[in-house]
């Protein structure tokens, strides 16, 4: 490890590790901001991953594949919406059921496709810029989904805090009764937010099966949906911090692998738990300042809305 040559490959690997978390996290953030807690992220990611993979394998068109993944994730989320928003089932239990359902459904859908390799999503080499030393490969030679993940964070941030529609969505999440009494369609808004969350989870899953490890394997998300859920609390429901958190999670995981390969004598078990330890520490630090959490946490999260009441 002479000089700084090793930094570029490390950063490149961190980007691929963080991108699925960014997608799933930013989608679930919007869902939660509308006052709905959907614990089915893992299941929606898996169904997105398998749908995207099958579409890519059959059509060879990665744009279609990403669309299919988003659509599949949104359909899963719609199902969740029907159960929790229209039929008023408990959100926590339904979300868990959605994950279990997603694990099984994706395995079933992917049965015929295990062991079929596809080529990875192309990197967009931006002419002239991707050859720049250091920043070239990092900033200008990523695949389209990486750029999209950054764009989505910016768009969600702008939408939530700079548009009227975003204000309404936050109002629904903070006090559905108040929003209802001044005439906003609480249930319809929540449906949209939940389905947006599902679509983003689907794309996050597809990033795994199309770009990260271009194959389909059962349960290939390996718990990333749960990490995305933790990320939102870690980020105290702020879009920018979801991005930071995702890169921190990805970064620690990759750095610990590099540290081991470099022969640093740090117990790998300790290194493996570092991301989670970091989350807990940050949570404790933030929790000391209650006002900061309260300001951004949706007050109605997880509560069922009875329009008649």
């Amino acid at each position, binding site marked *: 490890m002479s000089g700084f040559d090793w930094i570029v490959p490390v950063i490149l690997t961190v980007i691929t590790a963080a991108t699925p978390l960014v997608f799933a996290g930013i989608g679930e953030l919007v869902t939660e901001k509308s006052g709905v807690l959907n614990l089915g992220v893992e299941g929606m990611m898996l169904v997105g991953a398998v749908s995207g993979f099958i579409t890519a394998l059959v059509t060879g068109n990665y744009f279609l594949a990403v669309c299919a993944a988003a659509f599949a994730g949104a359909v899963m989320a719609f199902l969740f919406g029907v159960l929790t928003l229209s039929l008023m089932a408990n959100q926590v239990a339904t979300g868990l059921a959605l994950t*279990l359902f997603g694990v099984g459904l994706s395995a079933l859908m992917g049965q015929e496709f295990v062991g079929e390799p596809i080529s*990875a999503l192309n990197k967009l080499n931006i002419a002239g810029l991707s050859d720049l030393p250091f920043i070239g490969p990092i900033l200008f030679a990523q695949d389209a989904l990486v750029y999209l993940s950054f764009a989505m964070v910016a768009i969600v941030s702008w939408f939530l805090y700079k548009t009227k529609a975003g204000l309404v969505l936050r109002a629904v999440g903070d006090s559905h009764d108040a929003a209802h009494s001044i005439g906003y369609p609480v249930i319809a808004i929540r449906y949209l937010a939940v389905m947006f969350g599902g679509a983003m989870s689907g794309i996050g899953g597809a990033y795994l099966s199309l770009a990260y490890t271009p194959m389909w*394997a059962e349960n290939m998300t390996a718990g990333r949906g749960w990490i995305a859920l933790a990320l939102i609390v870690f980020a105290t429901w702020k879009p920018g911090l979801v991005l930071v958190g995702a890169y921190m999670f990805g970064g620690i995981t990759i750095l610990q692998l590099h540290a081991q390969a470099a022969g640093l004598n740090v117990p790998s078990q300790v290194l493996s738990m570092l991301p989670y330890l970091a989350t807990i520490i940050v949570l404790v630090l933030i929790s000391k300042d209650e006002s900061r959490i309260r300001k951004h946490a949706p007050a109605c999260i997880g509560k069922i809305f009875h329009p008649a009441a």
Partner: protein
Amino acid sequence: MTRKQLSGLVSAVALAGGLLMGGTAAAEDKIGFIYVGPIGDHGWTYRHELGRQAVQNEFGDKVKTTYVESVKESSSEPVIRQMAADGYKLIYTTSFGFMNPTLKVAKQFPDVKFEHATGYKRADNVSTYSSRFYEGRYVVGKIAGKMTKSNVIGYIGSFPIPEVVRGINAMTLAARSVNPDVTVKVAWVNTWYDPGKEGDAAKALIDQGADIILQHTDSPAPLQVAENRGVWAVGQASDMTKFAPKAQLTAIIDNWDGYYVARTKAVLDGSWKSEDTWGGLKSGMVELAPYNDAIPADVVALAEETRKGIEAGTIMPFAGPITKQDGSVGAKEGESLDDGVLLGMNWYVEGVEGQLPK
């Protein structure tokens, strides 16, 4: 709700599903299989599943085989107990971490026979079986030592248990016997199955100079990374050449079919006894996938010579002299490490970098 609880729930649901399908006729003997990963992992669990199918094909209507997949090691006990309580005659628990839960349940169900893979604790109704994977790794080590240009071999480890350490040491000894300049870098991922993390570990090792990647984890992700980065890799548990047609040198294949059929037969005819089986290349429990065409003929010849030597018993992978990583003597000239030492191996040989996690 933690992931652990959740996976328990998944297991319970899967089990309920399995039992619903398989719990009707009384004439057939029920044989259960508990897997640590999904049968679609295309690696470890997939090979056990092929073994189950071999049992079902062999005995047809006489047995009813059922499996539960993706059972977390930490929450496996209720799954094993459920099967035992449901009248299963024989239960295969196919991961190292199922060891203590298997023994605990076995004590409560003395009439049920258990077969635990890769463990070292037995009881009157618990047999253990494993494969001398290290024999395959020794053959692969000879190839790796000849094929590496950077003289750095990367090794992705799951958990620092003797089974995995043995593989690292066997490979290192073989590689250095043909190329003394080889060093081995190890990255532990603390999981048997996480395609993303396994791929990340492969990237980290390649970034640090490794031009051959070996793995003791279950997904083909590291081979895919090797294919993309233009380095060599060795498939694990199953032939993974589809994922890395250019990169896969060969693969170390587990073949449980014969053992599963034999042990199931023993239960059916009442001759089953608790014992420990440790098969290798000779018994067919370990196989090698076809060699990559890009391997020069003399290297293939060397590999074949090594394989035949191990089968014939003329080549012992852990024959001395062996120097440990810390410079002390692992085995003297003329002696060969016995199975007891191999089963408890908790030290690296010279040439492996980094410290073995305790």
